[in-house]
């Protein structure tokens, strides 16, 4: 039972850290994209296209972390 409590605590802490990481990463991407579009509005489409891929890769990393956290919780 104690082992379980530590597992839950670890999972919760880990998920919080993952959310911080993903939030910082996506925020930086969005900031870079906004600044780029502000400097050169004509390149808005290209910049959006370039930002799309890393955005979803990063979101995928966060989702992967959620999946492993759920695995730890459910498989004990």
């Amino acid at each position, binding site marked *: 039972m104690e082992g379980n409590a530590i597992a839950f605590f670890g999972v919760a802490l880990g998920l919080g850290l993952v959310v911080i990481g993903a939030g910082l990463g996506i925020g930086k991407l969005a900031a870079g994209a906004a600044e780029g579009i502000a400097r050169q509005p004509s390149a808005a489409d290209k910049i959006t*296209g370039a930002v*799309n*891929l890393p955005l979803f890769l990063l*979101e*995928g990393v966060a*989702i992967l972390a959620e*999946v492993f956290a759920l695995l730890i919780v459910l498989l004990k």
Partner: protein
Amino acid sequence: MLGQEHAQELGEHATEAAGKFDAGKTIIEHVSNSSVEHPLLHLPTLFGINFSVTKHVLMLWLVAAFVFFVVTLTVRKFLKQDRPIPTGFMNALEALVEFIRDSIALPNVGKKWVNTWTPLLLTFFVFIFCANAIGLIPVFEVVGIVDHFVLHTGEHSFLKQLLHGGTTATSNFNVTAALAVITFVSIITAGSKAHGFVQHWKNMVPHGLAWPLYFLLIPIEIMGMLVRPFALTMRLAANMTGGHIAILAILSFVFLFTEMFGQAIAGVGVGLAVSVPLATAISGLEIIVVLVQAYVFTLLSAVFIGMAIHVHH
């Protein structure tokens, strides 16, 4: 006497027959596949693979039939018309094809291979989008209500068995793993068609490095090659399950509050004030997620296929 008091408490609560409301079990039941031991249609086990039809298999077939008939009938009707400019649904379909060909396939795969790989990418996009979206429509829940109040079918009828499990076929990681395997095979096929089978494998590591480096690079490249389809799998499956779990968890508040206070009005109040608006907002978010995840799967498949065709190191 203690048993009698306990029984009385249970009787006072909103749920009559089931007892305590197990939120975890209910949520998992609504998101996972129907039970493998009691499938919808029992088929034999060939070569160690159980071919029985479960709910997700049924949804796969329904989505495939839906996509097939909608797209084929639309295109046939348009072709019979003999007009060069499409209208209505065919117009939307053509816009979709052009979007995927021009902004997903062409920049990644290059002009030479666009016509080879656009059909596959289109299939991915349309199938995944429809499978995701059909998971948001509560058809089986409505069937369950009709069955509960009108039809009263037996305990183990086919209709009752249809109600177990979730409707989103792509929330099952086996389904998304199959799609990722298709991508995996497509990457190897694309590289082989462009450069030849052996040269494709030689392209994975840069040329002309000192030979000890290859001992490090080759395992890393092989791991990268395997991790990418795995990430595709988990990304799609987890995004689909996560949204549904969030909605179900919020709607469970109604029942949890009812149990906590022992009166139905507590649950209804929480439902009206918190649960239903929040669940509606998350459902709206889910619609965006459905579209985005189909787009991302297609885009990443196109990027990986393009990486196999245009090798830059």
